[in-house]
């Protein structure tokens, strides 16, 4: 039904305002049962010539019609915006966040936000903004669209459903899956020949130094900051001397593309967690060196989009 009523359009940019031409109203199953009840009541009124029966039947029919407008009004003028997407890895749950904003200064009740997998029902108080998070499982790496979103309500009587469909221009990057039992990354420096040199000590604490804007929160030396009243970071031996070089071509040939991406993802995540400086080298690009969150995201995005020319 939705498809016929609503021609597929390209994804829309936010904000999306639910205005009158995009709200549809149709009776629900309860509504049909209600109509059937009214019909039976009308027949009884005719048969027994019950004037008050007619009046009651028509009053309730009027309530049914009125509820259509209440349902419609419950959605009318809601503004939808996208919220912060939480990046995720393949087979994680990806969260799409939407903000619903009432611009018409009225309370709205039982608004359902629905994607293909999940329904979230919420009330939206007058003049307020509310965040709703819909999740869906990421099955492929790369950009994931929010897809068709339905905002619906059966309020107030449950007899009719008012809804609006839209496809927002709202994408979350799904990073490749993190390989579970990956070998340690190769040491940086001159020794590039693979995974053999499994050595630890990457997070050997080396001392304190002044804070740099690019430092991740993990590197902050909170205790020292509390004493010194200025920002101080921990420095690690690894980040100082042993720079990681995570290279596509160093991986064994037995691995296919996705497995390679998976392993590189693992290494990037680990390195970022340890705040080590690393460089990611893919066949078509090299990122780094760097060690902060921005760098990590760039690397992960590159891994996610690897091989997708349109986005590279």
């Amino acid at each position, binding site marked *: 039904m939705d498809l016929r009523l609503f021609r597929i359009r390209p994804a829309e940019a936010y904000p999306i305002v639910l205005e009158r031409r995009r709200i549809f109203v149709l009776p629900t199953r309860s509504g049909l049962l209600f109509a059937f009840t009214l019909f039976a009541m009308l027949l009884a009124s005719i048969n*027994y010539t019950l004037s008050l029966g007619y009046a009651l039947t028509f009053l309730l029919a009027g309530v049914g019609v009125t509820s259509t407008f209440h349902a419609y009004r419950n959605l009318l003028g809601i503004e939808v915006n996208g919220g912060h997407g939480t990046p995720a890895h393949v087979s994680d749950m990806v969260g799409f966040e939407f903000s619903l904003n009432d611009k018409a200064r009225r309370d709205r009740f039982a608004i359902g936000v629905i994607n293909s997998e999940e329904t979230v029902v919420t009330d939206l108080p007058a003049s307020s903004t509310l965040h709703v998070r819909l999740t869906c499982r990421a099955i492929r790496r790369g950009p994931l669209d929010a897809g068709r979103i339905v905002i619906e309500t059966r309020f107030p009587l449950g007899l009719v459903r008012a809804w609006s469909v839209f496809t927002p221009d709202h994408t979350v990057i799904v990073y490749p899956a993190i390989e579970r039992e990956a070998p340690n990354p190769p040491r940086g420096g001159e020794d590039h020949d693979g995974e053999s040199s499994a050595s630890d000590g990457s997070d050997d604490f080396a001392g304190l130094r002044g804070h740099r804007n690019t430092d991740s929160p993990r590197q902050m030396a909170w205790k020292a900051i509390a004493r010194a009243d200025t920002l101080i970071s921990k420095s690690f031996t690894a980040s100082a001397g042993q720079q990681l070089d995570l290279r596509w071509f160093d991986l064994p040939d037995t691995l296919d593309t996705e497995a390679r991406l998976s392993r590189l993802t693992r290494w990037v995540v680990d390195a970022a967690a340890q705040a080590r400086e690393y460089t990611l080298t893919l066949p078509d690009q090299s990122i780094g060196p760097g060690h902060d969150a921005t760098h990590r995201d760039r690397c992960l995005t590159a891994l996610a989009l690897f091989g997708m020319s349109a986005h590279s």
Partner: protein
Amino acid sequence: MNAAPADTRAFWWMLLTAAMSTLPHLPYIASWLGGGTVIILAWQAWRIHRRIDAPRWYITTPLAIGAGVAVVITYQTLLGKQAGIALLVVLLSLKLLESRSPRDLRVCIFLAMFLQLGLFLDTESALTAAIAVLSALSAIATLISLSGLRSPQRTLKLAGTMVLQSVPFMLLLFFLFPRIPGPLWGLPEDAFAARTGLSDSMSPGSISELIQSGAVAFRVKFDESPPPRHQLYWRGPVLTNFDGRRWTPVKTGDATAPEYAVAGTPYRYTMTLEAHDKPWLLALDYPGPGVQNARYATDYRLLDSKRIQQRTRYTAESYPESRVGLNESQSTLVVALTLPPERNPRTVELARTLRASHESPEATLNAALSWMRTAGLNYTLRPPTLGLNTADEFLFDTKRGFCEHFASSFVILMRAAGIPARVVTGYQGGELNAYDGHLVVRQSDAHAWSEVWLEGRGWLRVDPTAQSHPARLDDGLAAALGANDAIPLFIRPDMQWLRDLRQRWDFVNNAWNQWVLGYDQARQQDFLSRLGLEKGNWPQLAGVLLGMSALIMLTLLWWAHRTQRESDPLLRQWARFEHKLRRAGVPRLIHEGPDDYARRAGAALVAHRDAIGSIATQYSRLRYGRGTPERHEIQQLKSMIDRLKF
């Protein structure tokens, strides 16, 4: 969403709805069922209160089967009005008991709505209407609370709003929706049980029973002034056969027009006859031709083709001065002379004496009347029980009787004297309502009189009760009754205030009856033609119906689009400003404050940069500056925004 159990509040609302829809039925349904309903409602209340799960199927199923069997045993059927209502009550109670999900509750609500309608089968009073509206309101509130509104006040308020908003629909459909005369299918036997009214036979006591009832028999609206009271004889069954105790009618022919020639002053009036489940249409003696769909019986009754099972309205024209029965058939006259043998010897003897001492039947008739006047007969609502010779005992022994005794004894006397005579039952008089000019005739105005046939003069009405007790005719029943008689409260003459109150109530009731209950096909056509709609022009009617519906829908649409007015006057101005800029293509971004927004908007709309900037500055100053903004400052901001035109 439906699988989740419903909210506790919704259960409470549902309980209220169920109580309001079933409890008013209690006086009309079997007592075991009423008791069972109360117990189940209480059980449900306890269950909700203690948050106990709904009983399982092995409890509810036997209950349902048991109740169904009990209904069949009690009512002998599952069809019909009474059994149908009983079954619905059972269904609602048990469904309520086993309800868990919103879906279960919705089914309950729809059952309750039907039960609210069912109440009208028993009574269509204004009180029932009020009960129905309240329980409909409760049903709507239940639906709302199922949809997720928690606050009871807001639920009720919303339900009230919705009911008010649907009143225009109700009125529109009520008055314009084509009224189809029922029934659509055969009505069950019990549909019109227990209607009071005249019966088609008369035995001692039948009318005095009727007169204890203050129920309205019919209402009459005369086009001009009503005829004098002594002409207000409303003709009902004409009883000619007499078996010594019971008077019954003979079979008569009928035609589409009266067989007599009308004469004298016509009185035109509109009757609103209450349902009495008998075919006769009451009319003032003697109705002229032209009553719609009516048959004219040869004994001058007016008949409908079917039994009057709903309040019926018709207009008629009566000519009290007409002469009827000038050429009465011999067979009718023979029956009107027949008496059961060996009954009432003293009355027969009296008749022979009267007949012998008078030349003409006319003189005999007058002599008989004056004999009755002087016989010392008393008029009473509680006559003693009579034996086999009713006329003898009344005329010579007990001398206490009601109109039926007077009439039947007089007819027996006439027949014994060789004058054809018969008993006519109907109503006499009525009360003129001071508020709407309707003549209200009640069951208490039921009356019996007699008709005698004289050669050359036809059938003449003779009312022996009135002859003996003229007050009965002029001042109504109460005046004619002896001091010892307990007068029914509603006709007591000394209670003027009561009468006044009753008249007012009757006025309201009549309006209610005419416009709400009695709004049938005829009334609708009358109403439509007064609105200028052609009778029977269905496309036109459909057009009007659709057009008006569309109008109501548009009003609702306008209402839906109406937004709440911002209560902060400053914010209201800012909203206008934002609205103007949005129309000009520069909507405010969600994170932009006044200054940032004005800067961006000014850059986009260069021609208005200064105006936009100063409005934003002014707004910021008023909003975030010291103190509350003065009225003139807001006014100033407003005019600045007014001047902003793109």
